[in-house]
């Protein structure tokens, strides 16, 4: 995917979404030298490369605060170059890879390495999440200060929870010095026998299972520790209704708490496990319809702040196995926007500008990244959205190195048709 690099680009005839003010207005956007020159009702095309945006929407580039790029360690599943390409195709101009690589990202040098690799690739920008603990072992604090200075924007031992409450307390306290959020992967290991929701379907299919309380019990502990320490906590990949209720309760108490969910949790349920299809195996597991509805309601009332992908690439050969043996994970960068548009906007849970905010200004605020604005003077970081497009997600259109998606073959609503990042114009 090679970008065009015209000096001047005119996004002509589109509707601009202001994700901060939650409004839309008809406007042309002129970009010159990688910066937004003007946003006006009608701008003449003189000398500019024109992107026809009639019937389309223009929004700030999306930020995915939770993905897995597998570099270093499993470059056969995904690299920073392929992951950032998949990100752009999905409208994400900034992504935050989790540190559960091999070796885990727990030092300043490794954070610099990831950012450097992304710059070399020249696609989406990468803001690494660093490990809370050395080697992601959940025992000793990692050099969080050093990683912050290198550009890490949040800290997490994602992939596993920090089981030791005292270690978690110290992580939360220590991160207050840098005003960075701690992202908690909530999972009480002892309650987890396998990766399928414990309930009707695990009973029917005899699958080893994990109850929702494995997530919500850990969330409860971490929320109380966040309140006690006064630190910033972010709950990753919320899948259970009980977790949504806990977050709502804690926000009411004034805990410095934010949360994300992923498209598969508001799109799918455990019912889709019928065929033992390992592309539906994900951690935390797909839960019940009641949980799915609670996640949607949590997004609608702001209990859940952001939408993240938890893009987790795995090779087809590894997923081609019996359910227990297959690794959990779903790729999501290229499908997130369309699924959210269908389920949340067309499903009338969120207005279009509010939905876009959950992919833009909200994650940027949580991570203290520069604001996402479509305004004169800002660096160009824009997506062009064709909301009328219907398209089928097929293996041939996947840019990720992996193909592990339960959405392959699904007809999608709404699509990213172009991304403008600095002086680079990518058309899809």
């Amino acid at each position, binding site marked *: 995917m090679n970008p065009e690099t015209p000096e001047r680009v005119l996004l002509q005839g589109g509707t601009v979404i202001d994700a901060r003010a939650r409004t839309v207005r008809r406007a042309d956007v002129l970009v010159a030298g990688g910066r937004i020159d003007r946003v006006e009702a009608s701008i003449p095309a003189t000398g500019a490369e024109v992107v026809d945006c009639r019937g389309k929407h223009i929004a700030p580039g999306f930020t995915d605060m939770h993905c897995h790029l597998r570099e270093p360690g499993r470059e056969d599943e995904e690299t920073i170059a392929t992951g950032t390409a998949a990100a752009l195709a999905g409208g994400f101009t900034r992504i935050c890879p989790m540190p559960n690589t091999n070796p885990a990202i727990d030092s300043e040098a490794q954070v610099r390495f990831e950012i450097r690799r992304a710059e070399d690739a020249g696609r989406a920008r990468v803001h690494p999440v660093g490990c809370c603990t050395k080697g992601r072992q959940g025992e000793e604090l990692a050099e969080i200060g050093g990683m912050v200075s290198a550009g890490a924007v949040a800290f997490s031992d994602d992939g596993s929870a920090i089981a030791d409450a005292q270690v978690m307390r110290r992580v939360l306290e220590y991160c207050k010095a840098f005003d960075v959020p701690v992202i908690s992967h909530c999972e009480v290991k002892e309650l987890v026998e396998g990766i399928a929701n*414990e*309930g*009707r379907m*695990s*009973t*029917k*299919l*005899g*699958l*080893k299972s994990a109850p929702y309380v494995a997530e919500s019990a850990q969330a409860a502990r971490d929320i109380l520790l966040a309140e006690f320490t006064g630190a910033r906590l972010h709950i990753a990949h919320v899948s259970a209704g009980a977790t949504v209720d806990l977050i709502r309760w804690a926000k009411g108490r004034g805990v410095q708490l934010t949360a994300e969910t992923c498209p598969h949790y508001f799109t799918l349920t455990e019912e889709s496990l019928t*065929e*033992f299809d390992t592309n539906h195996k994900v951690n935390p597991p797909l839960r019940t319809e009641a949980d799915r509805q609670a996640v949607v309601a949590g997004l609608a009332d702001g209990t859940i702040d952001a939408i993240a992908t938890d893009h987790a690439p795995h090779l087809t050969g590894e997923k*081609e*196995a*019996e*359910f*227990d*043996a297959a690794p959990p994970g779903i790729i999501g960068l290229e499908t997130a926007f369309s699924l959210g548009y269908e389920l949340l906007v067309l499903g009338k849970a969120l207005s279009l500008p509010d939905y876009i905010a959950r992919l833009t200004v909200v994650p940027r605020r949580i991570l203290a990244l520069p604001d996402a604005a479509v305004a004169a003077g800002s660096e160009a970081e824009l997506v062009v959205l064709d909301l009328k497009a219907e398209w089928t997600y097929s293996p041939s259109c996947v840019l990720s190195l992996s193909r592990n998606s339960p959405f392959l073959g699904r007809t999608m609503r709404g699509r990213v048709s172009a991304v403008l990042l600095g002086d680079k114009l990518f058309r899809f």
Partner: protein
Amino acid sequence: MKLRSRHLLGIEGLDRSEILTILDQARTFREVLDRAIPIVPALRGRAVVNLFFEASTRTATSFNLAASRLSCQCVSFSKATSAVTKGETLLDTARNIEAMGVDGIIIRHAAAGAPHFLARRVKAFVVNAGDGAHEHPTQALLDAFTLREKLGDLAGKRILIVGDIAHSRVARSNLLCFTKLGARVAVCGPPTMIPPDIVDYGCEVFYRLDRILEEVDVVNMLRVQQERITSSSFPTVREYRALYGLTADRLRKLAPEVVITHPGPVNWGVEMDFDVADFSQTLILPQVTNGVAVRMAVLYLLAGGEATPEKAEG
């Protein structure tokens, strides 16, 4: 009549008439087994493989014998001596064995859904001989066969399944099978061994054996798996036996016509006292004999179905 699927993956995919087709066919083969030369040429020239990734004596032997009685070759594969120990995947193993030219694969595997996974990827027919805690359809069929021999039609009969319902594939398949045949099924065990939403199967749940034991026609005991004894599903074998065991005391209180089944192997002194073995209404050995006939019926119906080409499942 033929079965709709080319595989036997579970009782789940069978309707009542298909179950009866298998049981009727098994009746014919049961008579064969009583002949002086208990063998028929029904599947001469065919070959199946016993692909057992979990230890099993009785089921593997039963399938082996069933194939032999149909003049079908049966080769055995066991995990310990195979390339699985060198890291070969299930799919590789199955495709390699299929490439040697077998008509059917009989698989037992610790992972639920392993037979379903294979069925979508190989051309041979697949018989589920037990997948994790999911299904064990031939056990359910042989139990139904045995009970029908003894009690006639199961419609309206009260059947109690006792033990580790959560981790038992026999419990799931039997629940489905007995229910489809019209029986009223109840399950009983400690709450730690009752899976969520089991009532979706249309059964009643009891946590105390003595509240239901004397009201049923059939007591289907399950084996207490060794690993459960150390996983805090119950405190001690002594307490399990006291609360859920078919003890000599409980046996004495049963009505004389009540029948007792167990899929074997029995942990004598745990889920059942030794006295049960000698009880006239205990059907454990007939279950084993009938198992051969039922497995003959399954292999015959699946392999025989090959004569008319059918559309493969997606």
